């Protein structure tokens, strides 16, 4: 059996006195799409951000591709990883944010090449070539010279996906990628994500798009109050919910 892409055991995270994650277990196998659903404040985004160490979990074991996130285990001790090592880990994990977070002072092309050139050390020519390929893959041919502010939300989010993909990540994290979009723009972003899922990318998606979860996800996790209340294949979670909380949640969002 191959090691899972993401493996979490008893992950806890508090912000001050507020316990956001209270022992989360999850296993994401390679090539699988996992959707995290749940009410706001349930810890979905925090869990996602722990996976690429934007937040440091307080307790539990979290591995990406077999490696501990943020630590090295040696002789029964956990050594915190250096900045350099954490950056190297992050560079292999793509992340797409709710608010796009494109670099506002850079053109679309520079947004997609900056990581390749400055982090991976790719030559500018190769980086540009790759950026153009990715732009065409997300349906944005010819937008190279635009600044993010000149694009619609849906276009910006597709650029953000291209920017993350340019790093050739082994895992993609999506933090409510369509929540900041006008309803008519949601589809174009979901289409790109579906396409990506079909290509075999391992994806973890925090989302409120139940239709997307039903259609694309291999596993759906329902988070509530910092624990995974229910998980399983989309049909059993979304259509035959067992827990009372999930039933209430679904009745609100569906």
């Amino acid at each position, binding site marked *: 059996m191959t090691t899972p892409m993401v493996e979490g055991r008893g992950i806890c995270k508090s912000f001050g006195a507020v316990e956001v994650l209270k022992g989360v277990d999850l296993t994401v196998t390679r090539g699988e799409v996992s959707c995290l659903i749940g009410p706001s404040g349930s810890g979905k985004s925090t869990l996602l951000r722990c996976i690429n160490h934007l937040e440091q979990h307080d307790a539990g074991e979290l591995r990406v591709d077999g490696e501990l996130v943020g630590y090295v285990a040696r002789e029964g001790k956990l050594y915190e990883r250096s900045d350099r090592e954490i950056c190297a*880990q*992050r560079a292999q*994990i793509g992340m797409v944010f709710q608010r796009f*977070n494109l670099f506002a002072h850079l053109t679309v092309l520079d947004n997609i090449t900056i*990581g390749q050139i400055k982090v991976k050390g790719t030559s500018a020519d190769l980086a540009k070539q790759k950026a153009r390929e990715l732009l065409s893959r997300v349906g944005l041919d010819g937008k190279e010279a635009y600044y993010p502010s000149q694009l619609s939300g849906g276009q910006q989010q597709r650029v953000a996906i291209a*920017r993350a993909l340019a790093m050739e990540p082994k895992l993609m994290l999506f933090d409510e990628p369509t929540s900041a979009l006008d309803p008519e723009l949601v589809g174009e972003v979901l289409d790109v994500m579906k396409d990506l899922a079909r290509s075999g990318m391992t994806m973890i998606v925090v989302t409120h798009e139940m239709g997307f979860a039903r259609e694309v996800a291999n596993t759906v996790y329902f988070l509530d109050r910092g624990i995974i209340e229910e998980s399983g294949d989309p049909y059993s979670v979304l259509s035959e919910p067992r827990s009372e909380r999930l039933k209430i949640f679904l009745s609100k969002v569906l």
Partner: protein
Amino acid sequence: MTMNGDAEVKVVPVRHVGRWFGGAVALLFLAMLVHTLFSKVPTGSVRCHVLNGIRSCHNVMTWRFSWGTVSQYFLNGEILSGLVKTLELTILAMVIGVGLGVVLAIMRISPSRLLSATAWSYTWFFRGTPVFVQLIFWFNINAVFPNITLGLPFLPVAFFHISANALFTPFNAAFIGLGLNEAAYFSEIARSGLISVDEGQVEAASSLGMRRSQTLRLVILPQAMRVILPPTGNEVISMLKTTSLASAVGVTELLGASGNIYAQNYEIIPLLIVASLQYLVVTTLLSIGQYYLERHFGRGASRTPPPTPIQRLRQDFFRLRSRALPSHRAPVPSS
């Protein structure tokens, strides 16, 4: 304009009575200003001449603001070398101020409490004491440290000795003092720029695997520049004039040079005007430079960059011309 497809309807523009009145008052004051600037006053001497056997006399008049003397000294060698000193002081002090200021700002937002407290204390001290006092302090530093040694702290190891008098010449004391003081102010400007950049930009850079220093250099600083530049323009222009304090420690900069001249010929006001006009010329050039720098760093911030003044003048010119020609009517949007 047409209404509901009817015939042409005349549009009566709204009258801005207050605006017209204010404009008239402003124009009146402007006329008074120009008049007094170019008015003439009697010198006190009287000149007489005889024409056709009739002797007539009149007062000799001169410019109230002695424009003759002003133009005589405007390109005077001493004034110009003073101007060069002023520019040198401004540039060197700003280089120290900006360089050290950015470092202080980064220290200030560092997670290390010690670094942040150090930066805070620096700003507290240098903002809290008069820059004039600081200049005189650096000029007299040899009273405290006669010799300055570069070596290992607390150890009897020295690489390099220099006497304070040799290092802190009037000019060096002036630009070092002004620069260290400027750093305190600039650190706050830089910090405001750094914290103005959205946290999401940092997260996006981190998620690409950028290190903290790369994030700062490639993502945060370029965007902070948009916020930093306008107050920095202020600081440069302010520094240009604050360098006149250097005359107190014996640097003959622009104001000092004009002071040296009027100490001999008593033409105080004309020479102050000469110095002021020189400051204004440099300030104008700096303002133009600032405008174009802001445009450069503002790219991406708005969908359509505003036109440059030259483009705007050209637009105004074409609009006036199209209004003057009846055949070129501005198209009215049909709604």
